[in-house]
């Protein structure tokens, strides 16, 4: 079941969607969410650009995406209806707030006639409801102004939908009581509106059926619903605990990464310091300083911020200090689409610095997976003394899913292994050489200020091998450039091989992805398999270096499809490194890829590879759900 709540950006749609999600998670369904909102905090009221929506897909089985086509649209005004109608399939349910279908609002949304009156919506099951009017009536006893009273209409809508899908209501009433504890009138009005919505569903005959979606069957464990940014922040806290290093976040607010700062600022009890700097560069600069001083330096940003931090990241490459750079990607270039998702920073992460400046890249594949990816980024940064780019994106950051909470025993131990002794020569001639490397990892020693006898100077100028003094020697520079690259390449020794999901073993086509396309790719692959065809799927956690077996894996398939929310950045890297004829499937619409469209793209390639005609049948229809 896919439900989309849509309204004005001031109508509280994100909150409504989030509460419905929490209720659904508490009920035990599997779910995936897709918030979609404008960059403007309050875009002009009632207009198309001001529409904000929240989509939640839930089911009694494992699901991978927020869904392509909603089954239910809740539209709080004409603009919300118009902006979202195109995504609905025929027969979908539409609940509209008739109160806002005034002549003025219809004009703002570009309707010349009221769509509720004509035949244009005949293909849908439309429920015109005066949500605002009923809300105002329901909260009358609290003596609020009409404006304040009508603001509770989102809770009325939530109550109605909660009844329709049999969601538990306690979490929402508890939440409202807590959230508005300081304003009893507003608190009581919201709870009353929520209950009134539920009761309206129960008593009216308009919604004859109360839907029931049974809890999903998921692997044993303790679960919670979690967004990507929250999971990522928790992962950084965990990285600090596992390494025994205090976390120092130096950052500057930027959409959609700011919630990582907000979250980490709450966790000072773990020794976390958050520094809101004057700009992106100062954020990463302070993080590098903290790392030099023996903390776990972290900076969080989005693509434009990475551009500003590039020189400093190069300094961390040269000084070989641990640093985690979180890039929550958004639509670009320039300011681009701040609140929309994209994967177009891969090449910036890979190459966006002057000189040969290799940086390891790690990417999470789902909101909950941001936790493990952050721990992995920390492990690499600390073990190999290097900046690491952690590439999340707007979809992962704000989207949520049920997450199996890992036990602390499952997390890797991370050893900062600070240098405490001189490491070159002996007796009175003993010295500390900051660039004498570990044979296995090629990591240099990390000697922090306060360690007697190991006083040393590092910096952005080229280092002489071993002793680390400034060196302009041509052969030394060539050697050091190659050594820094070799160190990053060597990380491949410590990462697991890429796993291929190829159940039949007969697939000729491999679909290879990275990052948040995991869900849509998995759903697309399922559809193709359900239609009776063979296809293999693999997903990359590590983008630099690639897993050691990736070349062999690619050779095992006739065709490789690489779906990405960019114009083919991973494809470019694969083609360059493995001489493989990777075929791109690329969209940059600011939204996740659609499973149905992907299924068709995969099917087409399977057809070519096997020399057969492909007919996906119902599995090529957006309305077909992802039942296994």
């Amino acid at each position, binding site marked *: 079941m896919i439900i989309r709540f849509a309204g004005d950006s001031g109508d509280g749609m994100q909150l409504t969607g989030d509460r419905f999600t929490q209720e659904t998670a508490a009920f035990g369904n599997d779910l995936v969410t897709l918030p979609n909102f404008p960059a403007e905090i309050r875009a002009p009221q009632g207009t198309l650009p001001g529409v904000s929506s929240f989509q939640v897909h839930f089911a009694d089985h494992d699901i991978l995406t927020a869904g392509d086509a909603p089954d239910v649209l809740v539209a709080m005004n004409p603009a919300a209806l118009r902006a979202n109608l195109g995504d609905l399939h025929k027969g979908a349910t539409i609940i509209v707030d008739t109160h806002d279908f005034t002549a003025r609002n219809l004009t703002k949304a570009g309707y010349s006639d009221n769509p509720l009156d004509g035949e244009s919506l005949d293909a849908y099951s439309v429920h015109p409801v005066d949500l605002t009017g009923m809300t105002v009536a329901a909260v009358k006893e609290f003596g609020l102004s009409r404006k304040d009273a009508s603001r509770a209409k989102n809770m009325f809508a939530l109550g109605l939908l909660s009844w329709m899908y049999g969601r538990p209501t306690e979490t929402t009433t508890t939440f409202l009581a807590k959230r508005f504890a300081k304003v009893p009138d507003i608190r009581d009005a919201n709870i009353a509106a929520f209950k009134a919505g539920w009761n309206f569903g129960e008593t009216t005959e308009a919604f004859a059926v109360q839907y029931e979606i049974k809890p999903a069957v998921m692997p044993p464990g*303790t679960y*919670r619903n979690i967004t990507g940014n929250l999971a990522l922040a928790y992962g950084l806290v965990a990285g600090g605990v596992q390494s025994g290093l205090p976390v120092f976040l130096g950052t500057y607010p930027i959409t959609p990464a700011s919630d990582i700062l907000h979250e980490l600022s709450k966790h000072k009890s773990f020794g976390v*310091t958050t520094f809101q700097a004057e*700009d992106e560069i100062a954020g990463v*600069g302070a993080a*590098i300083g903290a790392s*030099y001083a023996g903390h776990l330096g972290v900076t969080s940003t989005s693509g434009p911020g990475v551009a500003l931090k590039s020189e400093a990241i190069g300094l961390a490459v040269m000084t070989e200090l641990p640093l985690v750079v979180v890039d929550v990607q958004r639509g670009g270039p320039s300011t681009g689409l701040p609140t929309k998702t994209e994967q177009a920073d891969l090449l910036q992460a890979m190459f966006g610095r002057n000189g040969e400046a290799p940086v390891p890249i790690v990417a999470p594949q789902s909101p909950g997976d941001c936790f493990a990816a952050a721990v992995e980024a920390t492990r690499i940064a600390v073990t190999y003394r290097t900046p690491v780019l952690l590439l999340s994106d707007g979809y992962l950051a704000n989207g949520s899913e049920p997450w199996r909470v890992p036990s602390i025993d499952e997390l890797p131990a991370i050893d900062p292994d600070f240098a405490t002794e001189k490491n070159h020569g002996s007796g009175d001639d003993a010295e500390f050489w900051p660039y004498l490397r570990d044979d296995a990892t090629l990591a240099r020693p990390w000697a922090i*200020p306060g360690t007697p*006898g*190991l006083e040393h100077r590092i910096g952005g100028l080229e280092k002489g091998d071993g002793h680390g003094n400034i060196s302009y020697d041509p052969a030394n520079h060539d050697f050091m450039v190659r050594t820094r690259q070799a160190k990053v390449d060597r990380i491949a020794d410590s990462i697991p091989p890429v796993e291929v999901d190829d159940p039949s073993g007969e697939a000729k086509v491999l679909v290879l992805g990275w990052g948040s396309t995991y869900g849509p790719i998995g759903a697309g692959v399922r559809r193709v398999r359900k239609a009776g065809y063979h296809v293999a799927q693999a997903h990359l956690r590590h983008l630099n270096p690639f897993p050691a077996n990736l070349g062999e894996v690619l050779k095992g398939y006739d065709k490789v499809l690489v779906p990405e929310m960019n114009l083919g950045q991973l494809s470019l890297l694969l083609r360059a490194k493995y001489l493989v004829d990777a075929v791109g499937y690329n969209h940059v619409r600011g939204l996740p890829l659609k499973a149905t469209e992907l299924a068709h793209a995969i099917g087409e390639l399977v057809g070519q590879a096997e020399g057969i005609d492909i007919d996906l049948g119902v599995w090529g229809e957006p309305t077909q759900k992802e039942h296994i």
Partner: protein
Amino acid sequence: MSTSPLTDLGLPGLRSGTELVPTTDEKQTGKDFTSDQEVRWCPGCGDYAVLKAVQSFLPDLGLRRENIVFVSGIGCSSRFPYYLDTYGMHSIHGRAPSIATGIATAREDLSVWVVTGDGDALSIGGNHLIHALRRNVNMTILLFNNRIYGLTKGQYSPTSETGKVTKSTPMGSVDHPFNPVSLALGAEASFVARTIDSDRKHLTEVLAAAAAHRGTSLVEIYQNCPIFNDGAFDAIKNPDTKPDAIIPLVHGEPITFSAGTKGLVRDQSSGGVSIVATADVPTEQLLVHDAHHPDPSQAFAISRLTEMGYLNQTPIGIFRQVERTTYDDAAREQVTAATTGDDDAADQSARLAALIGGGDTWTIL
């Protein structure tokens, strides 16, 4: 020039800048702070004098050498850390204050120094400088001002006088320069001083006061570049002209110069200060320097007496030193307040498990 002991500030309760840094009883000399790296500035560069002064001053602090960190940006003066046998980082252009902010906030037990120049601190790194000053991070910033770009070979800098003919301004610069002291005072700095590379005694006294100050200390050091801007400070160095060119600032004393023949008085019309012949005004009308005044207005007014063209006249000394909570102390205090006293690794793991397993959860068996 006569100065009083600058370190005796008479401010009760003010924590010293190095109070939390471990000290040593071992006898230290300048040689202990000299690294094995060959110093590579141009012959005659003012940086040599400052390096020498710093190397011989550091033992006076009595701090453990391993707890001192020098951070620099890019420019001639930014090579400084390589020549000191302490911890150090030669970072990137303009960013040293931000890196030092991370170091100073992470570690209360370090004495943190920034070495920068007029281009590094006031052009490319201007933003970091003003924000470090307003935050009042516990560090000392040595701003070597030679009023020219040296490392890039002679372009005008943000402190060069208007009309300066350089490689990049053959018809003369049309830029208006910064007055670094005025800028720092406007940026809420808690310690602002100006000194001269060639006046070892004054330089050392200012360094001592800056190190003793808890917060961001900005020390502007007039430094001669013999290659690209030679003689920029001749008026304040030449024994014949300097009595008239230097306006010495000593806290608690009337501001006079030119062998006592000139002094400063308040200018009621402008709100600033004016230079008068001391013979023309009653002694009690002469301005007495008050570096500790909470209001920086008078310090700012004095800073405006700096000649912005060729430097024929300038106040020298500590313009301002006031007590204000430092960013790093306050940030650490919040972390300490949130941390439970003796939290070992096992406790941390347990709390981490509670954190990530918090919120609304459900269990599937």
